[in-house]
């Protein structure tokens, strides 16, 4: 009996641990290798991979197989400029003999009458002799100059940079010698941030499943042509590169960085893992938050389900139900010395403590004093009390993996009953831990805690990690609202919904483990 009890306790603890450890990667059909930068077109998200594969999503959370490209080459990349989508895709005709071809289209939506891929010719190549293998194109539009650039290359020699004509997508000057900017890497791509050009490349070995050493590294330069130097001062032309993201947890071999800028300082990046152990070791797409720290990009992690203290970065106070708090362990009382004696000179008194750990507050007990109906939400000093501990869990429907496009499938975002998601993340419900009290948006842009979660869009919350690692928290819908609003601190003791201001700390929240 004792053994059974111990086993049961262990399983319970293990279940809690596993639940609290869940990181929610994207859902649906996400198998792909060498994905292009995720791109948005006419209400849908797209990415293309090696072999001509494509994935499409209505909300950025649930993905399905898309229409293949007419060229089935290696590791494409795509950008939208003017009225055209420019897609670059490579093909090897020898070990280091390769061409990068341009494809253009007015839309990425195969159902559009404008959907038609047009060949744009070769924009870069390697002849099999020179010290380069012209594959893995990465396209970059310099936001400061509007000049268009293409990086490419693989482990045979240099990563190279050539300039393209943004009007056509073709080489600006086919006779101009490419710039060598890095070595010993592939899947290169450039981004710009705060006065610096960052070159992100993938180091390590690919295509070996869970034995792949793929990892993404970065260097930065003041000029688009380099030199790209890492955090230790090593030039990427000599193999330098600061680690951006490597294998972790149960995902092995991250590679092929692609930036998706949501605006207002919210950025995400797409990538693939060579092997997701939870998906049978398949190569899969993921989309994660992009942070910046000390001038370097940092790979954020998608939100983990768990119980949190939700603290305002602006005020340092925590979101709570507007109910009278009760001190954890009871009101302070004068006590005698703790068993075994206290610290020298303390004896007993109100500072002596009980001499043993104080258990968490029993929400079932304290919540009996809370009103039965709706309760206002406010902020207060965090005191580890029941009304301040929020459980944040994803709201997902059971997916019909065999038929994800079925309109009746609750996992299909087109189904109004689907909770859906946003780019790289599901929607979450936010409840007081151990209760059904649910945070919801109200008409007029205020907040309330409902007695129970009923699945309404005003009860579904999107979490966007910001560049500093804090979170923007936004309801899926606000009754009769004309514009999206986000959770905002107004004053020290009150929370509301307000328009997002990327320059303010009012709408930045820290999720701390209580």
């Amino acid at each position, binding site marked *: 009996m004792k053994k059974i009890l111990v086993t049961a306790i262990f399983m319970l603890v293990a279940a809690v641990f596993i639940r609290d450890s869940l990181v929610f990667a994207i859902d649906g059909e996400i198998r792909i290798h060498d994905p292009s930068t995720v791109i948005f077109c006419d209400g849908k998200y797209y990415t293309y991979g090696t072999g001509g594969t494509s994935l499409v999503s209505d909300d950025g959370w649930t993905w399905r197989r898309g229409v293949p490209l007419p060229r089935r080459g290696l590791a494409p990349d795509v950008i939208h400029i003017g009225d055209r989508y420019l897609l670059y895709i490579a093909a090897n005709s020898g070990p280091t003999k390769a061409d990068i071809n341009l494809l253009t289209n007015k839309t990425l939506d195969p159902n559009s009458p404008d959907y038609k891929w047009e060949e744009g010719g070769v924009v870069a190549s390697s002849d099999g002799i020179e010290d380069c293998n012209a594959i893995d194109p990465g396209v970059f539009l310099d936001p400061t100059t509007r000049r268009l650039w293409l990086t490419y290359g693989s482990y045979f020699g240099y990563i190279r940079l050539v300039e393209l004509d943004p009007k056509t997508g073709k080489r600006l000057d086919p006779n101009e010698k490419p710039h060598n900017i890095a070595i010993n890497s592939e899947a290169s791509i450039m981004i710009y941030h705060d006065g610096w050009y960052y070159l992100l490349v993938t180091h390590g070995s690919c295509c070996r499943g869970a034995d792949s050493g793929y990892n993404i590294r970065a260097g930065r330069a003041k000029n688009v042509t380099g030199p790209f130097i890492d955090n230790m001062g090593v030039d990427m032309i000599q193999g330098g590169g600061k680690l951006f993201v490597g294998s972790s947890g149960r995902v092995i071999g991250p590679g092929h960085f692609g930036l998706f800028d949501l605006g207002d300082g919210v950025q995400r990046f797409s990538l693939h893992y060579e092997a997701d152990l939870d998906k049978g070791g398949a190569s899969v797409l993921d989309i994660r938050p992009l942070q910046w720290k000390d001038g370097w990009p940092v790979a954020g992690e998608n939100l983990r389900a768990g119980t949190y203290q939700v603290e305002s970065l602006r005020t340092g106070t925590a979101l709570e139900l*507007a*109910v*009278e708090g009760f001190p954890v362990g009871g009101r302070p009382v004068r006590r005698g010395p703790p068993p075994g004696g206290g610290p*020298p*000179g303390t004896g007993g008194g109100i500072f002596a403590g009980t001499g043993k750990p104080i258990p968490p507050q029993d929400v079932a007990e304290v919540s009996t004093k809370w009103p039965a109906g709706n309760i206002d939400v406010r902020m*207060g000093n965090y005191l580890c009390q029941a009304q301040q501990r929020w459980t944040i869990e994803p709201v997902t429907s059971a997916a019909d993996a065999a038929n994800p496009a079925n309109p009746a499938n609750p996992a299909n975002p087109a189904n109004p009953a689907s909770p859906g998601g946003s780019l790289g993340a599901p929607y979450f419900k936010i409840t007081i831990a151990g209760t059904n009290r649910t945070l919801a948006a109200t008409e*007029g*842009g*205020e907040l309330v805690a409902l007695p129970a979660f009923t699945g309404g869009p005003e009860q579904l919350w999107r979490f966007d990690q910001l560049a500093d690692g804090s979170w923007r928290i936004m309801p899926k819908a606000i009754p009769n609202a004309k514009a999206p609003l986000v959770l905002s601190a*107004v*004053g*020290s*003791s*009150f929370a*509301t919904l*307000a328009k997002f201001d990327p320059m303010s700390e*009012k709408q930045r929240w820290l999720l701390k483990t209580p």
Partner: protein
Amino acid sequence: MNMHFKQIKFVAAIALSSLLLLAAASEVAAQTPPVTLTKPTSAEKASNPDGFIQRWLVLEPIAANGLTDSAVQSLIKKEYFPNQLTVIPRDGDELTVGGTELTWHAVDTVNYNVNLFHFARAQGKKTSDVLFWAVTVINCPREMRDVRLSIGSNAASVWWVNGTEVIGIYGDRQTVIDDGVSKRLTLNKGPNVVRAAIVNGGGATDFCARFLDAEDKPLKEITVSLGEVRAMPSPAKTRRQP
């Protein structure tokens, strides 16, 4: 070690005695001039550059105890005087609470906050374990939607705008600008009544209040007019609480 502990106890005893003397002095304070408060001398007063309302009618303190949510809510639900949630008093109005005669005083503060410790001490009243009622009438040049009352108080306080309770902050706390903020509300064109009940436990006590616009910026277009202001009562007329 024992010697050291005795020394600590001795110092603590001296400190405690001093504190008790100070506390006793504050409980029945001499009538010290309210250095941060003045008698209004104009018919109307604009909010200060940061939007703070600097003219109020404040009632001399009522003995009260408790700072928790339920204690404060219980205190404000008790009827101390007729129409306490609707009356717009005049400077010098007198009333009786629990057998004690109290007076409403019109005050201008020279700061962003109204120092209730100064106020009560100037009347020779208790400053600890007391409840203050404060009222003001703000004038808006037009209807203003989606504005918020924004306050700070030492300690707990409850606030009403045009008769509706809009803020409650509880516990032993210091005055912090924009500590308590109401939900969005609409101010009428013309007069609007702002009322507060501030409960102090011990020590300093004060409050500040302003309105924020839809962008959380201070409203600066409002003015305060409290009607006729009577002459400052002479110290001899000031009553002491029993």
